[in-house]
C-alpha cells in the first residue's frame, strides 16, 4: 500500500453536513440509524399518547374515530418499521464490524444508501396523514379489502413507502451477511462469533426471505387499487384471506426479526455483568436457528378465526407452541449464566434483567395465544395488545435501550450519568407495567382492540393504562437527556469500560476511533 493511500485510510471524520450525507463509515451510519430510530420512537410514541388520551375515559372526547384509526395504524407502522428495525440495523452497523475485527461493512456505499432511503420513506409515510381523506386507517396489518377498495387515496403513498423501507432492509441485510461471511478476522470462526453477530446473521437471512413477500403483498394491493386486478377482491374472483396468508408469511418472521437481535444483545450483556461465560453458547446458536426456521411455519396462528379447515388450525397450533421450546432454552441459558456468577447491576444489566423477566411474561401470553381453542376468545382483544407490547416494548425496545447503555461509553468515550440513568430505568419499568399489565385484564374481560371508545366496565383499567403510558412516554425524554449529556461530556470511559466485558470491541480505545481494525486482529 502506498504512503498516500495509507494516509487516506487514516483520516478522521470530515466535518459538516456532507460528513453525514456522503458517509460510508459504519460508525457514522450506525449513528444515523440510531438517531433516526430515536426520532421515530418519539413520533410513534406521541401517536400512542393520542390513542391513550382518547382511551383515558369512556366517551369520545378528543379525536374522531377515523383519526383514531389513523393513529393506531401509524403508531404500529412507525414503531415497527421506523423505530425498532432501524435501531437494530444501527446497532449492527456499529457493532458487527467491531465485534468480528473488520475495518468496515463489506459494502459501504450501499450502506449509505440503505440508510438514506429511510428518512424519505418515513417522511412519505408520515406525510400521508396530511393528504386529502386522511392517512392510512386500516391498522398496521392493513387487511384487504379495508386497505384496498375501502381505503383513503393516501394508501398508494403508504404502499410506496413500504416498498422503500423494504429496499432499505434488504440492502442492509445483504450488507450484514456479506460482512459476516467475508470479513471476519483470522481465527474468528463462526462458532466463536459473539452471539449478537450470530443473531443478526440469522435475522438478515429472515429479512431477505420475507421483505420481498411484503413487497409482493403491497404490490398486489397497488394493482388492485389502481389497475383493475382482483387479487384480494372477492367480487372479482379474488380472495381477501389470501392477503392475510401473504401478510403473515411476512409478518410472523418479521416478529422474530425484531426479537432475535434482542436475544443477541442480552446474551452479550448478561455474561459481562455476571463475570461468567455465556451458558450453552452452541445451544443458543441452535435455538436461534430453530426459532428462525419455525417462524416460517406458524404464520396462520394469527388467523385462527378466518375459518381455516380444522386440520390447518391443528397444524398451526402444534407448530406455534413448539416455539416455546427453543425460546425456553434461551431463557434458561440466561438464568444459568447468572447462576453462581459474580453479579453487579450497572444500568445495562438492569435493563437486560428487566428484559428477561418481562419478555418471558410476553412469552407466556404468547403460549396462551397459541392454544387455538382459547385463541378464539383472546383473538383481537386487548389481551393480544398486552402480549405484543410485552414482547416488543419490554422485549425489543428494552434490549435496544440496554444496548445503548452498554455501548454508549464505547461510542462517546464518556460514562453516562448514573443518577439520570437510574431515574430513567425505574420510571420506565414501573410505568411500562402500569401501562400494559392491566391490558391483559381488559382483553380477558372482553375489550376488543382498535376501538376508540368503550363501555364503562372497562374504564378503570383503561384509565390506569393511560396514566402508565403518559409516564412511560415522558420517561423516554430522560433517556434523550442522558444521551445528549453523555455525548457532550462525562467521566472518561476506559477501553474495557466494564470489568467483565470481553470481545474485540472492548480492546480498542474509547471512544472508538473513526477507523478501527485497519489491520485485522488475531483471534485466538
Amino acid at each position, binding site marked *: 500500500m502506498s504512503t498516500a493511500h495509507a494516509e487516506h485510510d487514516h483520516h478522521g471524520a470530515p466535518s459538516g453536513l456532507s460528513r453525514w450525507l456522503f458517509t460510508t463509515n459504519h460508525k457514522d451510519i450506525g449513528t444515523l440509524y440510531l438517531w433516526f430510530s430515536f426520532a421515530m420512537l418519539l413520533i410513534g410514541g406521541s401517536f400512542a399518547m393520542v390513542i391513550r388520551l382518547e382511551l*383515558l*375515559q*369512556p366517551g*369520545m372526547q378528543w379525536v*374522531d*374515530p*377515523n383519526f383514531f*384509526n389513523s393513529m393506531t395504524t401509524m403508531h404500529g407502522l412507525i414503531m415497527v418499521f421506523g423505530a425498532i428495525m432501524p435501531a437494530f440495523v444501527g446497532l449492527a452497523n456499529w457493532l458487527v464490524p467491531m465485534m468480528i475485527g473488520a475495518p468496515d461493512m463489506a459494502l459501504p456505499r450501499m450502506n449509505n444508501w440503505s440508510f438514506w432511503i429511510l428518512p424519505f420513506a418515513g417522511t412519505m409515510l408520515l406525510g400521508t396523514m396530511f393528504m386529502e381523506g386522511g392517512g392510512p386507517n*386500516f391498522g398496521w396489518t392493513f387487511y384487504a379489502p379495508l386497505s384496498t*377498495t*375501502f381505503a383513503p387515496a393516501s394508501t398508494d403513498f403508504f404502499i410506496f413507502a413500504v416498498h422503500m423501507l423494504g429496499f432499505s432492509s434488504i440492502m442492509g441485510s445483504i450488507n450484514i451477511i456479506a460482512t459476516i461471511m467475508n470479513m471476519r478476522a483470522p481465527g474468528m470462526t463462526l462458532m466463536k462469533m459473539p452471539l449478537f453477530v450470530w443473531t443478526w446473521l440469522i435475522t438478515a437471512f429472515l429479512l431477505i426471505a420475507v421483505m420481498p413477500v411484503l413487497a409482493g403483498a403491497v404490490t398486489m394491493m397497488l394493482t388492485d387499487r389502481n389497475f383493475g386486478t382482483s387479487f384480494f377482491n*372477492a*367480487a372479482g374472483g379474488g380472495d*381477501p*384471506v389470501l392477503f392475510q396468508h401473504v401478510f403473515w408469511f411476512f409478518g410472523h418472521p418479521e416478529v422474530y426479526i425484531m426479537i432475535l437481535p434482542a436475544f443477541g444483545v442480552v446474551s452479550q450483556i448478561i455474561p459481562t455483568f*455476571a*463475570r*461468567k461465560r455465556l*451458558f450453552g453458547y*452452541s*445451544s443458543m446458536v441452535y435455538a436461534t436457528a430453530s426459532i428462525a426456521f419455525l417462524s416460517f411455519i406458524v404464520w396462520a396462528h394469527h388467523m385462527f*378465526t*378466518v*375459518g381455516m379447515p380444522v386440520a390447518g*388450525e391443528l397444524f398451526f397450533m402444534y407448530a406455534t*407452541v*413448539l416455539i*416455546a421450546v427453543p425460546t425456553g*432454552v434461551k431463557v*434458561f441459558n440466561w*438464568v444459568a449464566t*447468572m*447462576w*453462581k*456468577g*459474580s453479579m453487579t*447491576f450497572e444500568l445495562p444489566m438492569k435493563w437486560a*434483567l428487566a428484559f428477561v*423477566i418481562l419478555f*418471558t*411474561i410476553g412469552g*407466556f401470553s404468547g403460549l*396462551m395465544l397459541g*392454544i387455538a*381453542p382459547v385463541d*378464539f*376468545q383472546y383473538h*383481537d*382483544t386487548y389481551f393480544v395488545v398486552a402480549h405484543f407490547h410485552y414482547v416488543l416494548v419490554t422485549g425489543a425496545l428494552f434490549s435496544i435501550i440496554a444496548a445503548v447503555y452498554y455501548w454508549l461509553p464505547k461510542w462517546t468515550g464518556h460514562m453516562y450519568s448514573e443518577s439520570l440513568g437510574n431515574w430513567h430505568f425505574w420510571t420506565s419499568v414501573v410505568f411500562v407495567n402500569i401501562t400494559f399489565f392491566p391490558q391483559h385484564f381488559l382483553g*380477558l*374481560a*372482553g375489550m*376488543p*382492540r382498535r*376501538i376508540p371508545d368503550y*363501555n364503562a366496565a372497562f*374504564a*378503570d383499567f383503561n*384509565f390506569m393504562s393511560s*396514566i402508565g403510558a403518559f409516564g412511560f412516554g415522558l420517561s423516554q425524554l430522560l433517556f434523550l437527556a442522558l444521551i445528549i449529556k453523555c455525548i457532550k461530556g462525562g467521566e472518561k470511559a476506559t477501553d474495557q469500560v466494564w470489568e467483565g466485558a470481553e470481545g474485540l470491541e472492548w480492546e480498542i480505545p474509547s471512544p472508538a476511533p473513526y477507523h478501527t481494525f485497519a489491520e485485522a486482529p488475531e483471534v485466538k
Partner: protein
Amino acid sequence: MSVRKLKQAAMMLFSSVLAMTSSHAWADKVLNLTEGVTEVSRNAYQMHMIVLWICVAIGVVVFGAMIYSMFAHRKSKGAVAATFHESHKVEVLWTVIPFIILIALAIPATKDLLLLEDASSADVTVKVTGYQWKWQYEYMDGDAEGVKFFSVLDKASNEARALNSGVDVSKVDNYLLDVDKALVIPTGKKVRFLITSNDVIHSWWVPDFGFKKDAIPGYINESWTRVEDEGTYRGQCTELCGKDHGFMPVVVVAKEEGDYKKWAAEKKAEAEAEAAAAASTKDWSKAELMAKGEAVYGSSCAACHQANGEGTGPFPPLKGSALAIGPAAGHIDIVVNGSKTNPLMAAYGAQLNDLDLAAVITYERNSWGNEASIVQPKDIKAAR
C-alpha cells in the same frame, strides 16, 4: 387540557385509587376470562386456566431461580464467578421437559378445537352478515324462517358516542353494548351461524359463547352454539372494519323455546305487514315519510353523514349538497345503487325496502334547511 377535563381526570384518578384499595371493589372487577354459558366457552375457560397455571408455575421456578441468584451471587457479597458454561444433562432436560408439557397441553386443546369447529346437525341456522357498521341476521330455517333484520347500535349509545356529546356515558345503560334489535335464539338448541360480510372483514364475537368468527366477503364461515340458560349476551365486532368498528355490538337474546316461537310468529307478522306497506302503491304524506325517514336515517346514514347532515372526514355533507337539493333521480340513484366513484357509499337498494328508501331520501331532501321534492315508494320501484 381544559380545567374541567383536568378536574375530571383528577377525580377519576382519586376514585380509581379508592376502588383499588377496597377489596370489595376488586371482587366486582372482571380480571379473568368469562366461563360463559356454553360447553365451548367452558372448555376455553378451563384450557385458559390450565395454561395460565402452567405459565405461573414455570414463572415461579425460573424467576425464583433468577431472583435468588441476583441476591446470592452478587459481587458485593463476595461471590466469585464459577467457570462452568455448559452441561449437556441440564440442557437436554430443559428441552425435553417443556416438550412433554406441550404435548400434555396439545391433547385437550385438540379435543376442544374439534368440538368448537363441529357445526354439524344443527337445529336452527342463522345467517349473519357484517356491514359497515351493523349486523344483519337472517333465519334460514325453523320457526322464524325468512325473518331478516338489521341490528344496529342503540339510539342512546349512538347519541352519547358523538365527539364531545356532553353525555355522561357511565349513565347510559349498556353503553356501546346494546342494539335496536337483538338476535333471538332458542335455548337448548344447536344454533348454526353462517357468517359472511357485504363489504370489509368483520368478526362476530359473543364472549359468553366462547368463540369469534370472521365475517369475510366472498366466504361463508360456519360456527355454532348451544346456550342452556335464558339471558341477554353481549359482544362486539372484533376485526377492524373502518371508522365505526367500535360501534357495532352483537347482542343475542336466548329465549326458552315457547317464547322463541312466540317471538318468531310476531316477527313474521311484522315482516308481512312491512312488506305489504312497502308494496302498496299509495302516496304517502310528507309528514309520514319524514317521520319514517328520520328513523331510517338514524340507523343507516347518520354514522357517516352525521345526524346534523354535515358529514365528517371523507364522508360528504348532505346539508345543502347539490345532489340532495337537485333533481330526485340523481339522489335516488346514489342511494339505491351506491356511488360509482366512492366505495364507501354502499348500495342501499339491497338493504332497505322501497318505502324506507323513499322515506329516507325524502328526509334528506327536506332536513337541515334542504328544501326539495318528496319521493314516493313507486319512484324507487321505477328507478330500480
